[in-house]
Protein backbone atom coordinates (compact mmCIF):
# COMPACT_ATOMS: atom_id res chain seq x y z
CA UNK A 1 0.00 0.00 0.00
CA UNK A 2 2.92 2.34 0.68
CA UNK A 3 3.77 2.52 -3.02
CA UNK A 4 0.18 3.47 -3.86
CA UNK A 5 0.51 6.53 -1.61
CA UNK A 6 3.93 7.45 -2.94
CA UNK A 7 2.84 7.17 -6.57
CA UNK A 8 -0.40 9.08 -5.98
CA UNK A 9 1.56 11.72 -4.07
CA UNK A 10 4.03 12.15 -6.93
CA UNK A 11 1.27 12.51 -9.54
CA UNK A 12 -0.96 14.83 -7.46
CA UNK A 13 2.02 17.00 -6.51
CA UNK A 14 3.07 17.31 -10.18
CA UNK A 15 -0.46 18.24 -11.29
CA UNK A 16 -1.06 20.65 -8.39
CA UNK A 17 2.26 22.42 -8.83
CA UNK A 18 1.89 22.30 -12.61
CA UNK A 19 -1.40 24.23 -12.40
CA UNK A 20 0.10 26.71 -9.91
CA UNK A 21 3.29 27.29 -11.92
CA UNK A 22 1.62 27.15 -15.35
CA UNK A 23 3.61 24.11 -16.47
CA UNK A 24 0.60 21.80 -16.71
CA UNK A 25 0.78 21.29 -20.51
CA UNK A 26 4.38 20.09 -20.11
CA UNK A 27 3.25 17.75 -17.31
CA UNK A 28 0.77 16.02 -19.61
CA UNK A 29 3.36 15.56 -22.33
CA UNK A 30 5.93 14.34 -19.81
CA UNK A 31 3.57 11.60 -18.56
CA UNK A 32 3.47 10.08 -22.05
CA UNK A 33 7.22 10.49 -22.50
CA UNK A 34 7.93 8.86 -19.15
CA UNK A 35 5.91 5.77 -19.96
CA UNK A 36 7.62 5.44 -23.33
CA UNK A 37 11.06 6.04 -21.77
CA UNK A 38 10.51 3.16 -19.32
CA UNK A 39 9.90 0.65 -22.12
CA UNK A 40 12.78 2.04 -24.21
CA UNK A 41 15.13 1.74 -21.24
CA UNK A 42 14.08 -1.84 -20.49
CA UNK A 43 14.46 -2.87 -24.12
CA UNK A 44 17.86 -1.29 -24.56
CA UNK A 45 19.24 -2.79 -21.36
CA UNK A 46 17.71 -6.23 -21.94
CA UNK A 47 20.76 -7.64 -23.72
CA UNK A 48 23.19 -6.57 -21.01
CA UNK A 49 20.94 -7.77 -18.20
CA UNK A 50 20.59 -11.17 -19.88
CA UNK A 51 24.32 -11.47 -20.53
CA UNK A 52 25.33 -10.69 -16.94
CA UNK A 53 22.65 -12.84 -15.43
CA UNK A 54 24.00 -15.59 -17.67
CA UNK A 55 27.55 -15.00 -16.40
CA UNK A 56 26.29 -15.09 -12.80
CA UNK A 57 24.51 -18.32 -13.54
CA UNK A 58 27.75 -19.86 -14.89
CA UNK A 59 29.56 -18.73 -11.73
CA UNK A 60 26.88 -20.36 -9.61
CA UNK A 61 27.09 -23.62 -11.54
CA UNK A 62 30.87 -23.60 -10.99
CA UNK A 63 30.32 -23.60 -7.24
CA UNK A 64 31.57 -20.06 -6.76
CA UNK A 65 28.75 -19.29 -4.33
CA UNK A 66 29.87 -22.16 -2.09
CA UNK A 67 33.54 -21.14 -2.23
CA UNK A 68 32.61 -17.58 -1.30
CA UNK A 69 30.44 -18.88 1.53
CA UNK A 70 33.38 -20.78 3.02
CA UNK A 71 35.46 -17.62 2.77
CA UNK A 72 32.96 -15.66 4.85
CA UNK A 73 32.50 -18.14 7.67
CA UNK A 74 35.35 -16.84 9.86
CA UNK A 75 34.34 -13.19 9.34
CA UNK A 76 30.73 -13.93 10.25
CA UNK A 77 31.83 -15.92 13.26
CA UNK A 78 33.45 -12.80 14.66
CA UNK A 79 30.64 -10.46 13.63
CA UNK A 80 27.74 -12.59 14.89
CA UNK A 81 29.28 -15.00 17.44
CA UNK A 82 26.01 -16.16 19.07
CA UNK A 83 24.18 -16.89 15.83
CA UNK A 84 27.19 -18.70 14.36
CA UNK A 85 27.26 -21.27 17.16
CA UNK A 86 24.37 -22.86 15.30
CA UNK A 87 25.73 -24.59 12.20
CA UNK A 88 22.57 -24.21 10.13
CA UNK A 89 22.29 -20.48 10.88
CA UNK A 90 25.95 -20.01 9.96
CA UNK A 91 25.55 -21.72 6.61
CA UNK A 92 22.42 -19.66 5.83
CA UNK A 93 24.28 -16.49 6.83
CA UNK A 94 27.35 -17.18 4.73
CA UNK A 95 25.14 -18.17 1.81
CA UNK A 96 23.23 -14.92 2.24
CA UNK A 97 26.41 -12.80 2.17
CA UNK A 98 27.92 -14.54 -0.84
CA UNK A 99 24.66 -14.41 -2.82
CA UNK A 100 24.44 -10.69 -2.01
CA UNK A 101 28.00 -10.20 -3.26
CA UNK A 102 27.17 -11.91 -6.54
CA UNK A 103 23.97 -9.89 -6.88
CA UNK A 104 21.72 -12.95 -6.62
CA UNK A 105 18.86 -11.25 -4.79
CA UNK A 106 16.52 -14.19 -5.40
CA UNK A 107 18.92 -16.53 -3.61
CA UNK A 108 20.08 -14.09 -0.91
CA UNK A 109 16.71 -13.13 0.57
CA UNK A 110 15.36 -16.62 1.43
CA UNK A 111 18.72 -17.52 3.07
CA UNK A 112 18.80 -14.27 5.02
CA UNK A 113 15.21 -14.78 6.16
CA UNK A 114 16.03 -18.32 7.25
CA UNK A 115 18.96 -17.02 9.33
CA UNK A 116 16.83 -14.20 10.77
CA UNK A 117 14.06 -16.62 11.76
CA UNK A 118 16.51 -18.91 13.54
CA UNK A 119 18.14 -15.96 15.28
CA UNK A 120 14.73 -14.57 16.38
CA UNK A 121 13.74 -17.75 18.26
CA UNK A 122 13.14 -16.91 21.90
CA UNK A 123 13.48 -13.16 21.38
CA UNK A 124 9.81 -12.49 22.11
CA UNK A 125 9.38 -10.20 19.10
CA UNK A 126 12.28 -7.95 20.11
CA UNK A 127 15.28 -7.66 17.80
CA UNK A 128 18.55 -8.79 19.38
CA UNK A 129 21.79 -6.90 18.73
CA UNK A 130 22.95 -9.57 16.30
CA UNK A 131 19.65 -9.54 14.43
CA UNK A 132 19.90 -5.75 14.05
CA UNK A 133 23.44 -6.24 12.71
CA UNK A 134 22.24 -8.82 10.17
CA UNK A 135 19.50 -6.50 8.93
CA UNK A 136 21.89 -3.55 8.67
CA UNK A 137 24.28 -5.77 6.71
CA UNK A 138 21.47 -6.59 4.28
CA UNK A 139 20.19 -3.01 3.91
CA UNK A 140 23.69 -1.92 2.86
CA UNK A 141 24.45 -3.13 -0.64
CA UNK A 142 27.60 -5.21 -1.11
CA UNK A 143 27.15 -6.21 -4.75
CA UNK A 144 30.38 -6.85 -6.66
CA UNK A 145 28.89 -6.28 -10.12
CA UNK A 146 25.94 -3.84 -10.11
CA UNK A 147 24.56 -5.26 -13.36
CA UNK A 148 21.27 -3.36 -13.47
CA UNK A 149 23.00 0.02 -13.10
CA UNK A 150 25.61 -0.98 -15.67
CA UNK A 151 22.76 -1.98 -17.98
CA UNK A 152 21.12 1.44 -17.60
CA UNK A 153 24.43 3.22 -18.20
CA UNK A 154 25.17 1.24 -21.30
CA UNK A 155 21.61 1.68 -22.60
CA UNK A 156 22.08 5.45 -22.27
CA UNK A 157 25.34 5.36 -24.23
CA UNK A 158 28.04 5.36 -21.53
CA UNK A 159 31.53 4.85 -22.94
CA UNK A 160 32.37 2.12 -20.45
CA UNK A 161 29.38 0.94 -18.44
CA UNK A 162 31.57 -0.65 -15.76
CA UNK A 163 34.02 2.23 -15.21
CA UNK A 164 32.03 3.13 -12.08
CA UNK A 165 33.03 -0.16 -10.40
CA UNK A 166 35.90 1.14 -8.22
CA UNK A 167 33.67 4.02 -7.08
CA UNK A 168 30.79 1.62 -6.32
CA UNK A 169 33.09 -0.65 -4.30
CA UNK A 170 34.56 2.26 -2.34
CA UNK A 171 31.11 3.70 -1.58
CA UNK A 172 29.77 0.24 -0.63
CA UNK A 173 32.63 -0.45 1.77
CA UNK A 174 32.23 2.96 3.45
CA UNK A 175 28.45 2.49 3.69
CA UNK A 176 28.71 -1.01 5.21
CA UNK A 177 31.43 0.12 7.63
CA UNK A 178 29.36 3.08 8.82
CA UNK A 179 26.29 0.83 9.17
CA UNK A 180 28.18 -1.70 11.31
CA UNK A 181 29.77 1.05 13.41
CA UNK A 182 26.40 2.75 13.92
CA UNK A 183 24.84 -0.56 14.96
CA UNK A 184 27.65 -1.28 17.43
CA UNK A 185 27.45 2.22 18.87
CA UNK A 186 23.65 2.23 19.13
CA UNK A 187 23.73 -1.22 20.76
CA UNK A 188 25.50 0.43 23.69
CA UNK A 189 23.47 3.63 23.79
CA UNK A 190 19.97 2.29 23.04
CA UNK A 191 17.63 2.26 26.06
CA UNK A 192 14.58 0.01 25.90
Amino acid sequence: MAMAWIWTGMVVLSVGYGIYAGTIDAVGAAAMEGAAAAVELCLSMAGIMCLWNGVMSVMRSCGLTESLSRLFRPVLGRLLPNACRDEETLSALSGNVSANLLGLGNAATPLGIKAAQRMAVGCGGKASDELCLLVVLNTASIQLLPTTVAGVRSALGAENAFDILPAVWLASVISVAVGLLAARLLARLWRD
Partner: protein
Amino acid sequence: MDFSAYLVPLLLAFVALFGVSRRVDVYNALAQGAEEGLRILLRILPALVGLMTAVHMLRASGVTEVLEKLLAPALEALGIPPETAALLLIRPVSGSGALAIGSELMATHGPDSYIGRVAAVMLGSTETTFYTIAVYFGSAGIRRTRYAIPAALAADLAGFMAAAFAVRLIFSAG
Protein backbone atom coordinates in the same frame (compact mmCIF):
# COMPACT_ATOMS: atom_id res chain seq x y z
CA MET B 1 45.84 1.60 -17.79
CA ASP B 2 42.18 1.71 -16.95
CA PHE B 3 41.57 -1.68 -15.39
CA SER B 4 37.80 -1.59 -15.85
CA ALA B 5 38.34 -1.71 -19.63
CA TYR B 6 39.89 -5.17 -19.14
CA LEU B 7 37.34 -6.29 -16.59
CA VAL B 8 34.47 -7.25 -18.89
CA PRO B 9 36.36 -9.22 -21.56
CA LEU B 10 38.67 -10.90 -19.02
CA LEU B 11 35.81 -11.80 -16.71
CA LEU B 12 33.89 -13.39 -19.58
CA ALA B 13 36.93 -15.42 -20.67
CA PHE B 14 37.81 -16.39 -17.10
CA VAL B 15 34.30 -17.54 -16.21
CA ALA B 16 34.01 -19.55 -19.41
CA LEU B 17 37.42 -21.27 -18.94
CA PHE B 18 36.83 -21.86 -15.23
CA GLY B 19 33.44 -23.42 -15.99
CA VAL B 20 34.76 -25.67 -18.75
CA SER B 21 37.66 -26.79 -16.54
CA ARG B 22 35.12 -27.83 -13.92
CA ARG B 23 33.09 -29.73 -16.52
CA VAL B 24 30.19 -27.29 -16.28
CA ASP B 25 27.97 -26.88 -19.35
CA VAL B 26 28.91 -23.21 -19.61
CA TYR B 27 26.74 -22.44 -22.59
CA ASN B 28 23.62 -23.96 -21.10
CA ALA B 29 24.16 -22.18 -17.78
CA LEU B 30 24.64 -18.91 -19.64
CA ALA B 31 21.39 -19.35 -21.54
CA GLN B 32 19.50 -20.27 -18.38
CA GLY B 33 20.83 -17.19 -16.62
CA ALA B 34 19.90 -15.02 -19.60
CA GLU B 35 16.35 -16.33 -19.35
CA GLU B 36 16.34 -15.38 -15.68
CA GLY B 37 17.52 -11.90 -16.75
CA LEU B 38 14.51 -11.57 -19.04
CA ARG B 39 12.24 -12.57 -16.18
CA ILE B 40 13.77 -9.87 -13.94
CA LEU B 41 13.24 -7.29 -16.68
CA LEU B 42 9.67 -8.40 -17.18
CA ARG B 43 9.11 -7.94 -13.45
CA ILE B 44 10.56 -4.41 -13.28
CA LEU B 45 9.05 -3.13 -16.55
CA PRO B 46 5.47 -2.54 -15.29
CA ALA B 47 6.72 -0.82 -12.13
CA LEU B 48 9.12 1.25 -14.20
CA VAL B 49 6.35 2.40 -16.55
CA GLY B 50 4.33 3.72 -13.60
CA LEU B 51 7.27 5.32 -11.86
CA MET B 52 8.98 6.81 -14.92
CA THR B 53 5.64 8.45 -15.77
CA ALA B 54 5.47 9.99 -12.28
CA VAL B 55 9.15 11.00 -12.30
CA HIS B 56 8.88 12.71 -15.69
CA MET B 57 5.74 14.52 -14.48
CA LEU B 58 7.56 15.72 -11.35
CA ARG B 59 10.45 17.00 -13.46
CA ALA B 60 8.22 18.77 -16.03
CA SER B 61 6.03 20.44 -13.40
CA GLY B 62 9.05 21.95 -11.67
CA VAL B 63 8.59 20.12 -8.35
CA THR B 64 11.98 18.43 -8.69
CA GLU B 65 13.65 21.81 -9.09
CA VAL B 66 11.92 23.20 -6.00
CA LEU B 67 13.02 20.13 -4.03
CA GLU B 68 16.61 20.54 -5.21
CA LYS B 69 16.65 24.23 -4.21
CA LEU B 70 15.09 23.42 -0.83
CA LEU B 71 17.63 20.73 0.04
CA ALA B 72 20.63 22.31 -1.68
CA PRO B 73 22.17 23.98 1.42
CA ALA B 74 22.08 20.77 3.49
CA LEU B 75 23.25 18.53 0.63
CA GLU B 76 26.06 20.82 -0.44
CA ALA B 77 27.34 20.86 3.13
CA LEU B 78 27.54 17.06 2.94
CA GLY B 79 29.26 17.13 -0.46
CA ILE B 80 26.24 15.62 -2.23
CA PRO B 81 25.13 17.24 -5.53
CA PRO B 82 21.61 18.74 -4.98
CA GLU B 83 20.45 17.32 -8.35
CA THR B 84 20.26 13.92 -6.64
CA ALA B 85 17.82 15.17 -3.94
CA ALA B 86 14.82 13.21 -5.26
CA LEU B 87 16.94 10.07 -5.66
CA LEU B 88 18.06 10.23 -2.01
CA LEU B 89 14.47 10.50 -0.79
CA ILE B 90 13.09 7.59 -2.82
CA ARG B 91 16.08 5.22 -2.61
CA PRO B 92 15.34 3.69 0.86
CA VAL B 93 11.64 3.26 -0.01
CA SER B 94 11.40 1.97 -3.57
CA GLY B 95 13.97 0.18 -5.72
CA SER B 96 12.10 0.74 -9.00
CA GLY B 97 11.42 4.36 -8.04
CA ALA B 98 15.13 4.90 -7.46
CA LEU B 99 15.94 3.22 -10.78
CA ALA B 100 13.40 5.50 -12.51
CA ILE B 101 14.85 8.69 -10.98
CA GLY B 102 18.44 7.51 -11.40
CA SER B 103 18.04 6.68 -15.07
CA GLU B 104 16.24 9.97 -15.65
CA LEU B 105 19.23 11.76 -14.08
CA MET B 106 21.68 9.77 -16.22
CA ALA B 107 19.65 10.51 -19.36
CA THR B 108 19.35 14.26 -18.59
CA HIS B 109 22.94 14.90 -17.53
CA GLY B 110 24.60 12.12 -19.56
CA PRO B 111 25.78 8.77 -18.15
CA ASP B 112 29.42 9.92 -18.17
CA SER B 113 28.75 13.27 -16.47
CA TYR B 114 29.51 13.90 -12.79
CA ILE B 115 25.81 13.84 -11.82
CA GLY B 116 25.15 10.77 -13.99
CA ARG B 117 28.02 8.86 -12.41
CA VAL B 118 27.10 9.88 -8.86
CA ALA B 119 23.52 8.70 -9.48
CA ALA B 120 24.81 5.37 -10.83
CA VAL B 121 27.17 4.84 -7.89
CA MET B 122 24.42 5.73 -5.42
CA LEU B 123 22.14 3.14 -7.03
CA GLY B 124 24.90 0.54 -7.02
CA SER B 125 26.08 1.02 -3.45
CA THR B 126 22.79 1.25 -1.49
CA GLU B 127 19.71 -0.91 -1.02
CA THR B 128 15.95 -0.46 -0.63
CA THR B 129 16.38 -0.15 3.14
CA PHE B 130 12.77 -0.02 4.36
CA TYR B 131 11.70 -2.88 2.11
CA THR B 132 14.56 -5.06 3.36
CA ILE B 133 13.80 -4.23 7.01
CA ALA B 134 10.12 -5.03 6.49
CA VAL B 135 10.89 -8.36 4.82
CA TYR B 136 13.45 -9.54 7.39
CA PHE B 137 11.75 -8.42 10.59
CA GLY B 138 8.31 -9.29 9.23
CA SER B 139 9.22 -12.88 8.41
CA ALA B 140 11.15 -13.30 11.68
CA GLY B 141 8.16 -12.06 13.70
CA ILE B 142 10.02 -9.08 15.15
CA ARG B 143 7.84 -6.15 16.24
CA ARG B 144 10.37 -4.12 18.21
CA THR B 145 13.07 -3.23 15.70
CA ARG B 146 15.04 -1.10 18.22
CA TYR B 147 17.91 0.77 16.52
CA ALA B 148 17.93 -1.17 13.22
CA ILE B 149 16.25 1.64 11.24
CA PRO B 150 18.49 4.53 12.40
CA ALA B 151 21.62 2.38 11.90
CA ALA B 152 20.51 1.35 8.40
CA LEU B 153 19.68 4.95 7.46
CA ALA B 154 23.09 6.07 8.74
CA ALA B 155 24.62 3.51 6.37
CA ASP B 156 22.49 4.91 3.51
CA LEU B 157 23.54 8.50 4.20
CA ALA B 158 27.18 7.43 4.39
CA GLY B 159 26.71 5.58 1.08
CA PHE B 160 25.30 8.69 -0.61
CA MET B 161 28.11 10.90 0.67
CA ALA B 162 30.70 8.27 -0.22
CA ALA B 163 29.24 7.91 -3.75
CA ALA B 164 29.75 11.62 -4.46
CA PHE B 165 33.17 11.53 -2.83
CA ALA B 166 34.29 8.40 -4.70
CA VAL B 167 33.23 9.80 -8.09
CA ARG B 168 35.11 13.05 -7.41
CA LEU B 169 38.14 11.07 -6.25
CA ILE B 170 38.25 8.57 -9.13
CA PHE B 171 37.07 10.72 -12.04
CA SER B 172 38.48 14.01 -10.66
CA ALA B 173 35.49 15.95 -11.95
CA GLY B 174 32.79 18.10 -10.39
